[in-house]
């Protein structure tokens, strides 16, 4: 029997992942020696680590490099998404400290878990093998289940963790089954090889096993990106999870889901596009409409943003349904801007909130406009961006996504999207009405704004406004990123 020769592996493509994993493990060890109450230091270290990882990721921009015999790749598409993940993680880390301290659950394990989540997401975006993508997704999901239930003293947080775990595992089952069927139909898990084999089929849509595999994978990912009708977990989980983790969950993992979806569907199954784009058409309409209509009636702001995040997944699905270069680049741009505006909004929510998740309704924003003008202006910027009003990144993103739909000829999809967008303005405005046009019901001390959260707000505002006014540079990056796909 000959010896197993391990193939030459090039570590550069997964350098950021390795770096973050090692850092996370090191933090777990350091955590033991740091007395409780000073766990913030772990946050600072991990933030620096995230920035360093960002440098490592950024250095990979350019020609694609494959490694591990085609399980993983470092290409611009992955790099763009990795930056989004790192941004969401970095911002989440910045806003965590104050909240966790207040809720009395600033355990050191938080930060390593966030970093592991990022590792999982990165593998999802960079994976070119269904196995890599699946395992990346599992790493991400398992870490997120824990993060959702991180506030152990809070019943709602427990519920969020458990609910997310159960429904998440359920959806993973769908995904895995889909992957297995795809493997059965093509005999490989490598995305490039699947594409080649499916490309040779005369009528791929007649291969029922492949189609079933595709459908099940779509279902699995639809759970992860919270697309209707697979969105039921979202509101409860987003409401119950600790606010910084809700912010993180709504930005990074959603983007990761889209990254994997885009790679699998656009690279491996482009020959089935006629079929899946019709499905996505329906999915997009459902997701946008359900999200927005339900958000209209929410008083709890976290819940409102949860439904709005469903709606935003719907807008991104519009670009996906179009399935062209514009749509894909639009999703990239949108996910990036969504990260800034959504985490920014959650940062403000953290500052408004009080211990025990109190003060979490829209009414609690009453009078903010004149008590904390800077904070209210920041919140207004985020809300306007979420509503898609220029000159913000949210507007450019929607502009991009809807143009892709019109380009593809899906006029009605674009019209429905636009109408949804108009409806969504109402509930975003409502927050603003409370901030500026109502008097506060009770007078209370405002929370002090700590430097990390101030920094995160600053970054978020910049990230929401600058791409809205001069989007050219980021648009170019997004377009280069999808060129290979």
């Amino acid at each position, binding site marked *: 029997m000959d010896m197993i020769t391990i193939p030459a592996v090039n570590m550069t493509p997964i350098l950021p992942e390795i770096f973050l994993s090692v850092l996370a493990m090191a933090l777990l060890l350091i955590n033991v020696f740091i007395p409780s109450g000073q766990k913030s230091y772990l946050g600072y270290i991990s933030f620096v680590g995230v920035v360093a990882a960002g440098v490592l990721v950024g250095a990979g921009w350019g020609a694609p490099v494959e490694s591990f015999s085609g399980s993983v790749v470092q290409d611009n598409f992955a790099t763009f998404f990795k930056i989004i993940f790192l941004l969401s993680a970095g911002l989440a880390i910045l806003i965590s400290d104050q909240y966790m301290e207040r809720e009395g659950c600033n355990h050191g394990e938080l930060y390593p878990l966030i970093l592991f989540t990022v590792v999982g997401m990165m593998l999802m975006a960079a994976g070119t093998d269904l196995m890599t993508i699946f395992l990346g997704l599992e790493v991400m999901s398992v870490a997120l289940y824990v993060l959702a239930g991180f506030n152990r003293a809070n019943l709602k947080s427990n519920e969020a963790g458990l609910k997310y775990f159960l429904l998440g595992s359920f959806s993973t089952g769908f995904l895995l089954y889909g992957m297995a069927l795809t493997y059965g139909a093509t005999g490989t898990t490598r995305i490039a090889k699947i594409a080649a084999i499916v490309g040779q089929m005369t009528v791929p849509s007649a291969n029922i096993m492949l189609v079933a595999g595709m459908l099940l994978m779509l279902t699995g990912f639809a759970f992860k990106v919270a697309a209707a009708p697979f969105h039921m977990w979202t509101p409860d989980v987003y409401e119950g999870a600790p606010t910084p983790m809700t912010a993180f969950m709504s930005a990074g993992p959603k983007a990761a889901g889209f990254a994997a979806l885009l790679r699998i569907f656009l690279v491996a199954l482009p020959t089935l596009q006629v079929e899946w784009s019709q499905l996505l058409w329906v999915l997009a309409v459902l997701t946008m409409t359900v999200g927005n209509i339900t958000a209209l009636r929410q008083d709890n702001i976290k819940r409102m943003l949860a439904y709005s995040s469903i709606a935003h997944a719907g807008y991104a699905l519009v670009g996906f349904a179009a399935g062209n270069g514009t749509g894909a680049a639009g999703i990239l741009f949108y996910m990036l801007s969504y990260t800034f505006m959504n985490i920014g909004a959650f940062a403000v929510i953290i500052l408004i909130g009080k211990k025990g998740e109190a003060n979490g309704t829209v009414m609690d924003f009453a009078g903010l406009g004149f008590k904390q003008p800077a904070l209210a202006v920041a919140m207004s910027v985020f809300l306007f961006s979420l509503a898609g*009003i*220029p*000159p913000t990144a949210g507007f450019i993103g929607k502009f991009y996504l809807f143009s892709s739909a019109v380009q593809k000829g899906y006029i009605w999809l674009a019209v429905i999207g*636009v109408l949804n967008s*108009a409806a969504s303005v109402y509930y975003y405005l409502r927050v603003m009405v409370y901030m500026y*046009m109502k008097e506060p019901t009770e007078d209370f001390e405002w929370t002090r704004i700590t430097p990390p959260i101030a920094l995160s707000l600053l970054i978020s505002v910049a990230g929401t406004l600058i791409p809205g006014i*001069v989007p*050219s540079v980021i*648009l*170019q990056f997004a377009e280069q990123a999808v060129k290979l796909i």
Partner: protein
Amino acid sequence: MMADPHLLTILVFFPLAGCLLVLPVWKRPAAARPLALGVMTGELLLALWLYASWQGLAALKPILPGYLLVEDAPWIGAFGIRYTLGLDGISLLMVMLTAFSFCVALAVSWRAIGEKVGLFLALLLAMETGIMGVFLALDLALFYLFWEVMLIPMFFLIGIWGHGRHIYSTVKFFLFTMFGSLLMLLAIIALHLLHAQQSGVATFGLHQLIATRLPAGTQLWLFGAFFLAFAIKFPLFPLHTWLPDAHTDAPTAGSVILAGLLLKTGSYGLLRFGYPLFPQAAQTLTPLFYTLAIAGIIYASLVAFAQEDMKRLIAYSSIGHMGYVAIGIAAWQPVALSGSIIQMANHGVTTGALFAMVGMLDERAHTREIGAFGGLWGKIPLWSFFFLLFSMASVGLPGLNNFVGEFLVLSGTFTKSPLAAGLAFTGIVLTLVYTVRLVQEVVFQTERKPLPLADLDRREICLLALLALLVILMGVHPAPLLDLIHGPVKILVGGAP
């Protein structure tokens, strides 16, 4: 200096710069007020200087025919969006109106706005940038940007400083306009893509997009989307319901801007973008346009007659006046169109003045009920005199400004559609009826409630005298303004079959 196109950028962004200057001192009214006044006056002077030199600019013949100044720079390369601003006679008239109306708005709110003054002024300045941008943008994406941006300050203006059901009104106002403009955005995108398909050039430039060949059906859809957005702003019956609410509950300055400028963006958009881009579709929809405009005039006049709140009454009269503007555009004929444009300016001045005056009365009496007043001629003669003057102007008394606009609109429309002109004429009679009622009840009648009213102070007299002067000047000698818009109107109408 003479033809420096950067002047347009300055024109647009100078108020925004002022806004950024005012924000840091927003808690100190004493510093914020003079600052805002300085910026707005500067803006007005710049506009007037442009007007003074327009013939010289026209002689230089810039890139686009009919334009006095054009500024063009790439902006978002990926979409082919350019930063294109252009000033022609029509824009110049609107720019002057804008700069002037903002000065009026500032003057009327000098005392009336007591709290959060700095923020109020900052929002006014931000809105001035938005409105200037709308009147100058020649790139559809840029136009859309300004179109949306100008809404945001108005939303806060009504919401924070309004009275009555101001929150309901402001949200309604925002949602109505947002709804229309989003559909327009889609139409803009579709037009852009169709053009790119035909010519291979990705652009949002108005003058490139005009060349797009569109099948009749497509044209109708796209025009429909544009028309909806503009008709909501106009506002045309039956999309007008936001206007009475917004006007009634807005602070006086807000009403002045709403009536003077925001409504004009609708009519301006229609004649600058809607008609030139989709001439056939516009022709097809002309009967509908006439019908809505005339229905609006008659409906608004009838409803105005029944109003008890003076502000609401003037708001409805606004809908009626804008109906004439609509008819003039629908006729799409040089005389009628000139009349419409002149009427836009006239209405801005007259209605702005009326709102300002009601605001002054409200400050003193804390009510706007028609029934609460009476016999004001004896108590506050100066106020009554000006009110009478502006009311007469609003009715279209010859020699005052509105007469010119209405006369041109009706005589121009008569050549195209005698029926529409005839029906619109009945509207004038109705206008007369409710205006006479207003004046009769408020100014003449015997006093109903003993209200301690002081007559106008010096600031108010200056402001109203200036407005009155304009009303008379534009009424007796409109020729310079007509000259200004003559060229652009010919180009616009010549472009349509």
